[in-house]
């Protein structure tokens, strides 16, 4: 596609008139294909923002069903979805009503080493909105091997983090964290909780980075890590190392050339499930 219809110009007018977007930028957005892994606290704002913005093809990956404890922060899921709909269906049902011209692709499946390449292969950009260590390493390795940028966000309690991995010679996740954390040090949202607005902030920032990558903007958060502290409403921009030449997966002589067993690697389950509610 190289030009916009009158209706597209009208619909996307308020972003087309922003100098760094323009008609050319809107065409790029409409041509782009982005996959969002995780339709939870981060995945909801990422997918709604990108849907509004007009990213032409959006894939959503999630194996899970909507549960009541999701509702406080996973704002695309309604009460009527609880225990009735998969998160993927729930999300896309709303998103398609927001923007009928977006092509949504449902991946209602647990992403793992067997299927990751097939799921991710045809997209331009991968967005990590997952909630566990093993899947984060999986996505990292898959994106390096498939040569795709990975827009990574995370949140817990009153903090959030954001960076873009594997982009323009920037580091990948393993460049920085070549070994996974000991299982007993990992807190997840099921144990420690999270405030919804924090995922709203990080998810919106992830969407902004996706747009910047599509625009080929010069200041993407690659080699930089954003730390968000909601209590202080403060943000820090950390300067990270470049791509590590001896990185096991993205280095000059990689030892990892295909996907491995990530649950084994991490000693942890590839999901954040907490059957026992902590009740104070």
């Amino acid at each position: 596609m190289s030009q916009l219809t009158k209706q597209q110009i009208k619909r996307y007018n308020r972003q087309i008139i922003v100098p760094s977007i323009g008609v050319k930028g809107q065409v790029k957005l409409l041509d782009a294909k982005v996959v969002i892994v995780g339709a939870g606290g981060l995945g909801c704002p990422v997918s709604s923002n990108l849907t509004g913005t007009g990213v032409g093809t959006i894939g959503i990956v999630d194996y899970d069903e909507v549960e009541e404890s999701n509702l406080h922060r996973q704002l695309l899921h309604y009460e009527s979805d609880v225990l009735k709909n998969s998160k993927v269906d729930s999300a896309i049902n709303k998103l398609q009503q927001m923007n009928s011209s977006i092509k949504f692709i449902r991946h209602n499946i647990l992403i793992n080493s067997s299927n990751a390449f097939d799921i991710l292969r045809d997209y331009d950009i991968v967005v990590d909105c997952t909630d566990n260590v093993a899947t984060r390493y999986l996505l990292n390795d898959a994106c390096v091997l498939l040569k795709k940028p990975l827009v990574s966000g995370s949140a817990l309690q009153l903090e959030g983090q954001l960076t873009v991995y594997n982009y323009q010679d920037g580091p990948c996740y393993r460049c920085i964290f070549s070994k996974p954390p000991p299982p007993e040090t990992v807190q997840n949202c099921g144990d420690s909780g999270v405030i919804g607005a924090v995922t709203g902030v990080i998810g919106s920032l992830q969407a902004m980075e996706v747009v910047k990558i599509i625009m080929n903007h010069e200041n993407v958060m690659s080699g930089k890590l954003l730390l968000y502290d909601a209590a202080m409403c403060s943000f820090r921009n950390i300067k990270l190392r470049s791509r590590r030449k001896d990185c096991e997966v993205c280095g000059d002589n990689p030892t990892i050339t295909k996907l491995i067993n990530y649950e084994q690697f991490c000693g942890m389950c590839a999901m954040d499930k907490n059957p026992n509610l902590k009740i104070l």
Partner: protein
Amino acid sequence: MDITLDFGGGAEVLFNNIKKRELKLDDGTKWTLRSFLQYMKDNLLTDRLELFMQGESVRPGILVLVNDTDWELLGELDYEIQPKDTISFISTLHGG
């Protein structure tokens, strides 16, 4: 020598839940991040060692920063601490 020590991503729970503090390090000695980690282990750590360190370094999943810069750009454990440095220990988050 005055420095600032702070924590993110929940790492403060290992240090008496104090997110940020000012410290005075003995001026007589040269301080590296290597020796400072030992100092933290001996004087500030309030939880099990293996939740913070492995061998002489931090355990996997903790990123060390000096003045908001990845320690890998500064020599990691060999970095010599300067007056007024801010040293940060950030636990990487995985939740969403």
